[in-house]
């Protein structure tokens, strides 16, 4: 039997101009990529940080190159780090991010992004697990670092700030506001050096190419993941992983991007792999301008960015696109310069994509991936998007759907989505058993997602393996029901789980956050009945003001399930 991976039914679906194979990385290492890009683009603007009131700061390609050289020098020659040493970075989107991240790559060290919203206990776990020798952290989080320091020894500390590298007057005003109005900068007594001082010390050292002998398979980043399934693990992403995934994703959208012409909105955090690979690296290499938004909450914080810059691309998540369309200023004046958008991180609802198309006249490309795949694994080609589908594999990516025994399922049947390609991680940091469980001997990564494949190679994620609901012997996939609920104009968001039910085994229960306060259970049932087979229609509907979410915005069905089970026992 020919396997799907070798047959590649999706090969014909690549749009003109998109090759089915991406063979070579864009540069030998990420540091080299930064140098090459800066040599090509020079003094054009690479990164612009935009504050809610419109204040901004720019870094040119040449400046990013020069400052990251200085930081690499600081790491290796002043802080005395060795190649392969980990460097943690905990900051909201700011001009610090490219300077530090690229500096770490150029130093031959390993970047460890830490979520700024982590609690001290979560920070301590990650610091223990990755054991970085240095952390670059925004002054706003020094209180949490102090707390984390009581749980685990702390590395060397470099303190930065949101307004770092912005023009002096603006930096001063933002600093004053943060200190005296927001009071968001806690006092602390940890020994540290300020980032500008570190950069000055690094710049004073003789120029040196620290990454000259770095092999392409050197580790570039430990990207932590798994917050929704259990303890956070570090996915080992190599220089080659990131360079190849950039190339794959940028090739995939190549017909719709123009070198040195794009302005991309980076409202999702760069500590997340999606924005890291696509915005920080991909659009940078393309010569585009990244608009870094330190805090997109509330969404009105994005208003000035949309008013002041001709945004051509948005990389986001379902929540961002949906939220923007609920903002009056966005509805009044949807960006006219927008070409297309890319959604990842979570399923893009068909209704959201349609409303977006109606409002802006542009498409949202839904992609699919995991931290473990750097992250892009599949995508919907622009103009050939298929609703409810995660699209076709990236160039040079093989996909197999397998059953529980690991055998490939027959065409048309659901199976676990597994993939092999240059973007698949090297493994989990210091967790050989987890790595062995995730990546099979042939190199296919198991995603834990159940998918089906259309005859022409488009994939559809039906669900996470464990979220499936069994109603009287019929499989119900929560995503499908949630998709239907999302299409109702009176529903803001919803979550669907299975709860034990004597007669049917399990019953479908929907938790609904209303947009229209008048909405009733009967309305929702009538709406679902029109779109779903009877057994899929929620038997139980509960209205909520909000739904439990992970810190990356995924709705936590397991929390709802645990709550439902415990209340049943209590009754």
């Amino acid at each position, binding site marked *: 039997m020919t396997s799907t991976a070798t047959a590649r039914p999706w090969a014909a679906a690549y749009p003109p101009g998109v090759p089915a194979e991406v063979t070579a990385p864009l540069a030998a290492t990420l540091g080299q990529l930064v140098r090459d890009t800066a040599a090509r683009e020079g003094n054009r603007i690479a990164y612009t940080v935009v504050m809610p009131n419109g204040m901004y700061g720019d870094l040119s390609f040449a400046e990013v190159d020069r400052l990251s050289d200085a930081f690499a020098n600081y790491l290796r020659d002043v802080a005395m780090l060795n190649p392969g040493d980990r460097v943690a970075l905990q900051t909201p989107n700011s001009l610090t991010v490219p300077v530090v991240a690229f500096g770490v790559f150029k130093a031959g060290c390993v970047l460890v992004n830490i979520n700024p919203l982590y609690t001290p206990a979560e920070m301590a776990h990650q610091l223990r697990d990755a054991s970085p020798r240095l952390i670059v952290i925004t002054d706003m989080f020094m209180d949490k670092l102090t707390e984390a320091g009581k749980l685990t020894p702390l590395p060397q500390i470099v303190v930065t700030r949101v307004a770092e590298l912005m023009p002096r007057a603006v930096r001063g005003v933002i600093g004053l506001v943060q200190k005296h109005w927001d009071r968001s900068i806690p006092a602390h007594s940890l020994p540290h050096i300020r980032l500008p001082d570190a950069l000055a010390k690094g710049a004073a050292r003789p120029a040196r190419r620290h990454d000259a002998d770095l092999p392409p398979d050197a580790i570039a980043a430990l990207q932590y993941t798994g917050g929704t399934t259990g303890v956070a693990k570090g996915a080992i992403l190599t220089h080659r992983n990131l360079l190849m995934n950039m190339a794959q994703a940028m090739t995939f959208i190549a017909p719709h991007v123009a070198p040195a012409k794009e302005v991309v909105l980076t409202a999702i955090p760069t500590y997340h792999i999606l924005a890291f690979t696509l915005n920080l690296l991909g659009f940078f290499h393309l010569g585009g301008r990244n608009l870094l938004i330190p805090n997109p909450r509330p969404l009105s914080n994005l208003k000035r960015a949309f008013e002041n810059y001709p945004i051509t691309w948005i990389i986001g998540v379902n929540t961002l696109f949906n939220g923007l369309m609920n903002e009056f200023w966005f509805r009044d004046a949807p960006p006219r310069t927008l070409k297309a958008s890319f959604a990842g*991180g979570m399923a893009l609802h068909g209704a959201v994509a349609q409303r977006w198309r109606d409002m802006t006249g542009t498409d949202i490309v839904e992609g699919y991936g995991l931290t473990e795949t750097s992250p892009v694994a599949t995508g919907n080609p622009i103009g050939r998007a298929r609703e409810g589908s995660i699209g076709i594999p990236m160039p040079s990516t093989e996909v197999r759907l397998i059953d529980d025994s690991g055998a490939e399922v027959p065409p048309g049947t659901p199976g676990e989505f597994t993939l092999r390609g240059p973007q698949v991680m090297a493994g989990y940091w210091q967790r050989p058993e987890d790595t062995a469980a995730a990546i099979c001997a042939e190199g296919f990564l198991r995603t834990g997602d159940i998918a089906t494949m259309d005859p022409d190679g488009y994939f559809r994620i039906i669900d996470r393996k464990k979220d499936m609901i069994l109603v009287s012997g019929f499989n119900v996939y929560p995503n499908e029901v949630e998709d239907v609920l999302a299409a109702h104009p009176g529903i803001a968001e919803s979550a669907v789980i299975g709860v034990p039910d004597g007669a049917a085994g399990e019953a479908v229960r929907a938790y609904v956050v209303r947009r229209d306060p008048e909405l009733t259970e009967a309305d929702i049932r009538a709406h679902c009945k029109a779109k779903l087979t009877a057994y899929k229609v929620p038997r139980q509907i509960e209205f909520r003001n909000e739904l439990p979410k992970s810190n990356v915005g995924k709705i936590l069905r397991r929390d709802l399930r645990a709550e439902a089970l415990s209340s049943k026992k209590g009754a």
Partner: protein
Amino acid sequence: MVGPLEQAILALMIAVIMLGMGASLTPRDFTSALKRPQGLFIGVVSQYGFMPLIAFTLAMVLPVSDPVKIGLLIMGCMPGGTTSNIFTYFSKGNLALSVLMTVTSTLFGVVLIPILLLVYAAGLDIDIPASNIVVTLILLLVPVAIGMAIRRWNANVGALVELGGSALGIFFIVFLLVSWVPRNWAFLLTTPPSVFLGAIALGVMGFACGYGLSILMRQTPRNARTVALETGIQNGPLAVALVVLTFASTQQQEILAVPVLYSLFIVITSSLLTLWFRRIDARSQQTLPNALL
């Protein structure tokens, strides 16, 4: 009353504040407001429909002297004031709509104010101080245009000007309150309570009617807040100038009672309303999950 120097300082402050307000606007804000002119229309209706009617009703109901009645009616027939733009900004309302409403009601006022006074005050013969109207419009429009241009030229300078303008705006409000009370202390003590009631009720009922009409006409909460403030807040200085130009000094003092008292209390009631509007706005913000938005 208010001396020329003080008037000049106030005018300069308003100009600087409006420069800051302008720096928060883009041409698109105005085209959006003009694209759906219902808001503007509702504003004019509420400005020249409700306010004179409220003033007339108060004049009929309250036991006040004839000159006070005249003052009340004149106050009710005034166009929107520049202060309404400042309060709209702080209320997170639709500033472009507010500016457009002030401009429209001021321009319409040239024709409508005499007609309204003819209807409600049976042909009260008054002079519309044209120079005052021109000054109002210039003080509003020129700084706004310059502010918008500054922002377009450099967003950082724009944001700094906006920040400065709004800080001065708060100072301005406090300054109005603090400087008014000692200046008019004797007047406050001698004025009967019914005049107080008329001066306060005119603004408050204006807010309520403007807000109610907007909600009834299915305007967005943001536009409703704007129309409410724009309706309730009248151009006090214009009323004062109009009275001074029109009436002999013996009558003047008594007629001026309402415009003067109104000018004080509208700042207080608008501040309270703004605090409430800000809470509504904060509550209406979408809640988004942490991190990936």
